[in-house]
Structures are given as structure tokens and as C-alpha cells.
């Protein structure tokens, strides 16, 4: 390639950031789901571990979402406005979830230790952590299905509700929830000290892996009619099949690793699995950014903007990577000695 295909590169960077958001931010939401579902004799320890792990990092993890939005409106302004109009309702609801999740989590940490007070914020935090991923998934599913921007005439429902109120989009919402919960459970097996608590999260990881698998199969099946473009993209040529096969193999590895208590391996393969799912979707959707309405090319901002944005992102990365590395190092070293 003599000249860089800038729109494609930036779309790629956006998918990288989205992947990072799903892996890091998604796991924080998943932690909230397990807070909601905490049960058994160790439910207090379960909640405490989740809070300990999330507290120092959730705000940094959350910034990935903001970066995705910023890239979207700078590099693909037409896509941003199309999505913001078509998905106005689920996005607004998702924002309410984002606000409630973050603030309730913080309020719980700083409010009275009394059980009733803790419980109240806990329920709000956990509830919002469960609903928000579903809404995020609905938005993603609506995009993949090619319904956004398709209906240009009609009443309020036809324009602003029907495009995302579809079985396919709802199923994507469920998948996203399972995915986040699965990631969180796998990560928590690594964070927990060996013993009963770790086993609690192992069981949760295994069950959510099964749920995730079921949701993924159902979604793949439903995509044939509901998301024809993406579905076709998943069967075109050798590459998609290779990706599909790899994902399947990695899922088996992950499940086996959990079964045999090799948690670090399980964590690595869970991350790989999620990455493949998102990139599979991105490749299948190519060349569209909003399937069958806007291509990456057509939505792209002028070249100057793209080039400068790419430079800014590179410079930012140089600052970001060491900072993030430091953050995770500070909070993973000597974890097990604390609180004793």
C-alpha cells in the first residue's frame, strides 16, 4: 500500500478501543452483576472482593468508552449523527444506567456502613450494572442488523423505536450481559485467594460460559435473517471460517482451563475469545460503519482531520500506556498480603 487507507485505520483504532472497553469496562459491569447475584454463605466476601478489585480502576476503564465516542464524532461525524438520532432512546437510557452505576458505587463506598444504607446503594449499583450492558448490546445489535437509518419515513415508533426493538437486538443485549458477567467471573477467579471464594467465582464463570455459548449460537442463527449483511460477511471466504474455528477452539480451552483450575490461562483465553468476537463482527460488517446506510469511506471526515486525529491518538498512547501499566502494577503487586 502506497498510501494509508486512513478511514479504515481509524475505524480499526476505534474497534481496538471498543475491544478494550468491553474487556476492562465490561468486566466492571460484570462485577456489578455478580454483586447482584451474590449468594451463599460467602456473599459478603464476594461483594467485598468485587468492590476491592473495581474501586481503583473503574474510572480509568470507563474512559475507553469516551475515546470511542470521540473518535466516532471526529473521524466519522455522519455516523455519529445517524446513530445518535436512530438510537436516541436506548442511548439515553444507557446513559442513565452509566450515571447510576458509577455514582451508586461511589456513594456506597463513602456512605454510612449501616446495612440498610449499604444495601440501598448496592442494589442501585448492581441493578444499573445489569441493565446498562443490555442497553449497550441492544445498540450494537441494532447497528449490526442494518436497521439504523433504514426507515426514513413513518411515525415516531417507526423511526425511533422499531429499529432497535427487535428480537435480534434484544438477543445481542442478552449476549452482552452474559459476556460481561463471564469476563468478570473469570477475572475474579484470578483475583480471589485460593479457596472457597475462588471456587464460587469458578462456578460462576463456568455457568456464564455456558450461557454465553448458548446466546452466541442463538444470535448466530438469528443473524441469518435479522442481520443479513453481517451474517453473509461471516461466511464469505476462508478468513471468517478460520476466525470462527479459532473462537470455538479458544472457548474450549477457556472452559477446560476453568474446569482444571488454571485461572491465568482461563483469563488469557477469555480475553482472546472476546477480542475475536468483536473483530469478527467488525470484519463481517466491513465496509459499512452503519450497515447498508453508511460506509466507512462515506462517513469519514476530511483527510486532514483523520491524519491529525491519528497523530493525536499516537501521542496520547505514548502517555497512556506507561500510566496504565503503572496503575495495574500498583494494584496487583502484593494484593494478597493486604488487609491481613
Amino acid at each position: 500500500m502506497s498510501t494509508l487507507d486512513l478511514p479504515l485505520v481509524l475505524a480499526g483504532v476505534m474497534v481496538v478501543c471498543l475491544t478494550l472497553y468491553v474487556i476492562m469496562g465490561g468486566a466492571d459491569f460484570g462485577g456489578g452483576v455478580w454483586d447482584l447475584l451474590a449468594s451463599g454463605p460467602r456473599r459478603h466476601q464476594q461483594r467485598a472482593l468485587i468492590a476491592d478489585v473495581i474501586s481503583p480502576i473503574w474510572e480509568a476503564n470507563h474512559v475507553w468508552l469516551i475515546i470511542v465516542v470521540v473518535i466516532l464524532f471526529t473521524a466519522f461525524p455522519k455516523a455519529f449523527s445517524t446513530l445518535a438520532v436512530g438510537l436516541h432512546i436506548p442511548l439515553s437510557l444507557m446513559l442513565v444506567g452509566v450515571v447510576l452505576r458509577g455514582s451508586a458505587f461511589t456513594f456506597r463506598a463513602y456512605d454510612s456502613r449501616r446495612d440498610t444504607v449499604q444495601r440501598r446503594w448496592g442494589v442501585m449499583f448492581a441493578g444499573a450494572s445489569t441493565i446498562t450492558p443490555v442497553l449497550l448490546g441492544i445498540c450494537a445489535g441494532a447497528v449490526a442488523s442494518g436497521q439504523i437509518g433504514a426507515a426514513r419515513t413513518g411515525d415516531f415508533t417507526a423511526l425511533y423505536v422499531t429499529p432497535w426493538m427487535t428480537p435480534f437486538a434484544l438477543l445481542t443485549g442478552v449476549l452482552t450481559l452474559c459476556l460481561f458477567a463471564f469476563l468478570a467471573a473469570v477475572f475474579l477467579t484470578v483475583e480471589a485467594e485460593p479457596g472457597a471464594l475462588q471456587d464460587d467465582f469458578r462456578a460462576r464463570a463456568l455457568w456464564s460460559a455456558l450461557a454465553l455459548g448458548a446466546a452466541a449460537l442463538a444470535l448466530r442463527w438469528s443473524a441469518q435473517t435479522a442481520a443479513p449483511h453481517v451474517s453473509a460477511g461471516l461466511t464469505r471466504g476462508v478468513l471468517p471460517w478460520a476466525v470462527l474455528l479459532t473462537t470455538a477452539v479458544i472457548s474450549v480451552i477457556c472452559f477446560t482451563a476453568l474446569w482444571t483450575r488454571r485461572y491465568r490461562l482461563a483469563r488469557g483465553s477469555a480475553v482472546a475469545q472476546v477480542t475475536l468476537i468483536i473483530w469478527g463482527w467488525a470484519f463481517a460488517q466491513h465496509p459499512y460503519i452503519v450497515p447498508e446506510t453508511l460506509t466507512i469511506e462515506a462517513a469519514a471526515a476530511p483527510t486532514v482531520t483523520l491524519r491529525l486525529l491519528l497523530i493525536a491518538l499516537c501521542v496520547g498512547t505514548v502517555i497512556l500506556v506507561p500510566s496504565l501499566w503503572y496503575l495495574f502494577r500498583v494494584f496487583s503487586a502484593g494484593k494478597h498480603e493486604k488487609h491481613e
Partner: protein
Amino acid sequence: MAISLAFHIIFAVVGIGMPALMVIAEWRWTRTGDPVFLDLARRWAKGTAILFAVGAVSGTVLSFELGLLWPKFMEWAGPIIGMPFSLEGFAFFTEAIFLGIYLYGWDRISKQAHLAAGVMVAVSGAVSGIFVVIANAWMNAPTGFDVVNGLPVNIDPIAALFNDAAFEQTLHMTLAAYAATGLGVAGIHAWFVRRDPTNAFHRRALQVALIVGVPAALVQPLSGDLSARDVAKRQPVKFAAMEAHFETSGNVPFVIGGIPNAETGELQYAIKIPNALSLLMTGSASTVIPGLDAVPPEDRPPVGVVHIAFQVMVALGSYMALLSLWVVWHWVRKREFSRTPLLLMGLILGAPFGIIAVEAGWIVTEVGRQPWIVHNLIRTADAVTPVPGLIVPMVGFTLLYAFLGVVVVALLRRQIIRSPGAPMEGFETREFAVLPAKPE
């Protein structure tokens, strides 16, 4: 959007100012070994944690709202002003990362590293504020493109970054953040010092807060004057609305207060200093200053709101500057911070003034720009989303913010304001059980 912004700006201001206070207190602790300073840094850090979380989530709402409410504006302006927003994104990253380290790393990293993390938070907070205000300044002074058939071409994002209003606005805003936070916190602690004059904790808190707030409040009127001159050149209609100057004329008086009547074009109940505005702006009493009548009525902003908001900002700014002058004067003579009851009363009264002035200043900037969303280029009404029923999300988010506001105030009272003397509540929580690391 205006409501989200008005809510977010409170947290943004505190998010810029508080880290500075925290870091100065911690630095004083490393220098003097006085454990009171450490206690102070820790308590302020807890307050910052609460405020930061709410600031972060309300900021997230804003970045989506730009599209949810103004899709046409973003489609138009995104490629031009996306640059400061993306740089701002990285500033958020460093701010969130180092705040995490600062809040939860007390017993995990060395003292120097901890202090450095605090400095990173303070710097990136200021930088993120600067970037977003640059984006806003561009809406007042759009540059870096040509318009052909109603669409921007020949885009130059770098020129947009260095637009004409950027310097004045970012300077004024950054100073405002330090002045509002510094004097706000000083006012709160002054209240406790007044009740309990020997309390070492509140005396030191007052001292640190004044170190941040006083210099900023002193230069703020100068920076405001710079802004006003800039507005007069760049947006004469906004300037006319600020001054409630209806008819283009010379020998314009300088007005203080008053209620403008847009129907009759009169300003009632104002104190007028003859010729002073013309003199002030140009050095000559006879210079003609364009009034609101320079443009057709549909291009005029709501003069009442703009004029009153401007008067409020200037009045509060003058109060804060005079108060600061008093503090400095006392310090120069006596080499110590004054704690005379009258000054303490003045500080207590002035505690909310900074935030009120910030809100008023933003109303001047934003409402004064109306009916344009981008000065003289795009009308706000043309940029709004086609989605109907916007009243629903507006009411919804307002209620949500009201709820969060109430909770935040309650928690802040609980966490930091409660006078040490009584043990700090919540000691049994895990994160903070290991208090205080021994000063060497």
C-alpha cells in the same frame, strides 16, 4: 444540554481545584511532618473521590448528548473541533488513572510517588478543562475552515485549536476554577474556625485553601477585562447585550446593575457613569459602540438574561477580589493569615460566590451567543435533533441530577466537613483502616 453542562461544570471546577488543594496539603506534610496536613490531604481526597465520580459520569452524558441533541452541529463541527476533544480524552485518562493511584495507593507506593501522582491529577484536570473550553471558544470565534454551499471545506483543525477566543476563555476559566474552589473551601473552613478558633485542622485547611484561591481571585477581574475587550471586538452583539446597550451610539455610559426591557429598549434602575464605557473600551469618550440595534431583532440574544448574568458575575468577582486583597494586605503587614471575625464572616458569605459566578459567566457566554450555536454560522434551532419529545429526557436528567446533587452534599458533610475532634466516621472501612502512615 444546558442543564447537564450547568451541573457538570460544578464538578469540573472542583475537579480542577481540589487536586491542587490536596497536593499542597500533602506537600506541606512531607515538608513539615505535621500530621494534621496529612489528615487534611486524606479528607480532601475523599471528597474529591465523590465529586470526581459524579463529574465523570455527568461528563460521559455530555459527550453523548452532543450527538443526541445536536447531531447536525456535530456533523458540521466534529471534524473541525474533534481535536481538542480527543486530546481531552487523554487528559481524562491520566486524571482517572492517577486519581485511582492517589486514592487507593497511600500504603502501596512511596511518599514521593504518591505526591507525584497527586500532581499528575491536578495537571491533567486543568488540561482537560482547557481543551474543552477551547472547543467552546471555537463556537464563539469559528476559524479553520471555509464555507462553500453551507458546508465546511479546507478544514484546518490546528487553526481551529488556536482560535481567537481560546486564550482569553481558557485563562479566565482556569482562574475561575481555582478562585471558586479555593475561596469556596476557605469559606467552609472559616465557618469552623469561627466556632472553634483553636482547631488546628481547620486553621491549616483555611490556610491552604487561601493559598490557592486568593491569587486567582485577585487576577480574575483583569482576565475578565481582557475577555470583555475581546468580546467587544469579536461579538459586538453579545457585548451590547452584556452592557444592555440598545442603540448604537457614542458617549456610552458604564452601567452598574439595572433591569433591561427589550421591548422599549430601556435600562431601568441602573447606576450610570457617563461616557465611562466608551472611555474604558477605546480611551475616547466619543467612540461609537455598536448596540443591539446593529442587527435585526431575530439575531439578538435575550438581553435581560445576559445583562443580569454579567452584572452578577462582575459583582461577585469584585467581592472576591476585594476579600482577597484584604487577606493579602493583612498577610503583608502581620506575616500571618488573618482570622479576625469580620474576615471570617466575609469568607463564609463568599463561599458559594465562585460557583455562582461560574454559572453566571457561562450564561453570559452561551446565551449571549444565541441565536447562534456557532457564531454567525449555524443557528441553534437548525442544529437540534429531529427526535421529538425532548422534554422527556430533559426532565428525566434534571431529576437525576437533582437527586445526585442532594446525595453528594449529604456525603460531603459526612465525610470531610464533620469536625475532627470527633473521630472520622467510616474508619472501619478497609481502604482507610491503615491511617496515618507515620511521618518520619
